[in-house]
């Protein structure tokens, strides 16, 4: 036969090399995003007890919402629970590094913010954390995107991104939707 088995194997191997090249290109692009834009999936192995979440510590009800620390770090603490977010409206400044911290006292939830790369699962037992910079101002939707029970469909919050000039913390460094 004109085309021997070796030629077939050679053509296959050549194609396999092309395939590996293609996936390597994709891996390189991902490494580039990691190095230049600091993009990682949100990992944060920080255990917290879901059963006593509401009793003490940073996720007690009075402590939730956006707060600016003395060093100027903007952190928003949000609890996802069956079937509401607390708080349900969150104010954050645009064009500034912000940190969102989530925890749940009950089951698995998850959030995304429409039109951004903000996305994380919220797993009972851990604090989920996303660092990001919002570049566009306006009201964004932050739904629960993981099935958490029969009320899952009605579980969503609003994220209000305001220009830095309108982001005014009170004496304790807190900013909330009601205050505006």
């Amino acid at each position, binding site marked *: 036969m004109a085309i021997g088995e070796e030629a077939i194997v050679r053509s296959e191997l050549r194609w396999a090399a092309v395939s590996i090249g293609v996936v390597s290109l*994709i891996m390189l692009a991902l490494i580039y995003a990691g190095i230049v*834009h600091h993009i990682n999936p949100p990992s944060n192995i920080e255990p917290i007890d879901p059963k006593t979440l509401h009793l003490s510590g940073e996720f007690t009800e009075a402590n939730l919402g956006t707060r600016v620390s003395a060093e100027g770090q903007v952190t928003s603490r949000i609890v996802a629970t069956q079937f509401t977010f607390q708080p349900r409206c969150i104010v954050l400044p645009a064009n500034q590094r912000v940190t969102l911290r989530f925890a749940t006292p009950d089951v698995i939830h998850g959030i995304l913010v429409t039109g951004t790369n903000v996305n994380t699962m919220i797993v009972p037992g851990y604090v989920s954390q996303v660092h990001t910079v919002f570049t566009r101002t306006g009201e964004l939707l932050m739904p629960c995107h993981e099935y958490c029970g029969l009320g899952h469909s009605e579980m969503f919050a609003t994220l209000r991104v305001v220009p830095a000039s309108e982001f005014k913390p009170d004496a304790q460094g807190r900013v909330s939707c009601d205050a505006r």
Partner: protein
Amino acid sequence: MTPEEELERVMRDVPRGALALAALSVGLLLVGWFLVYLLVFLPRGMVS
């Protein structure tokens, strides 16, 4: 021509067409991926 000779004849061209087709489709796939990467993903900003 016998079936074996037929096969021998076509095997002179194979796999040029398959290679072209596979390269075309994988190329399109790669272009599509990079379009999403550059036009949607990176503009949406950093998260970590």
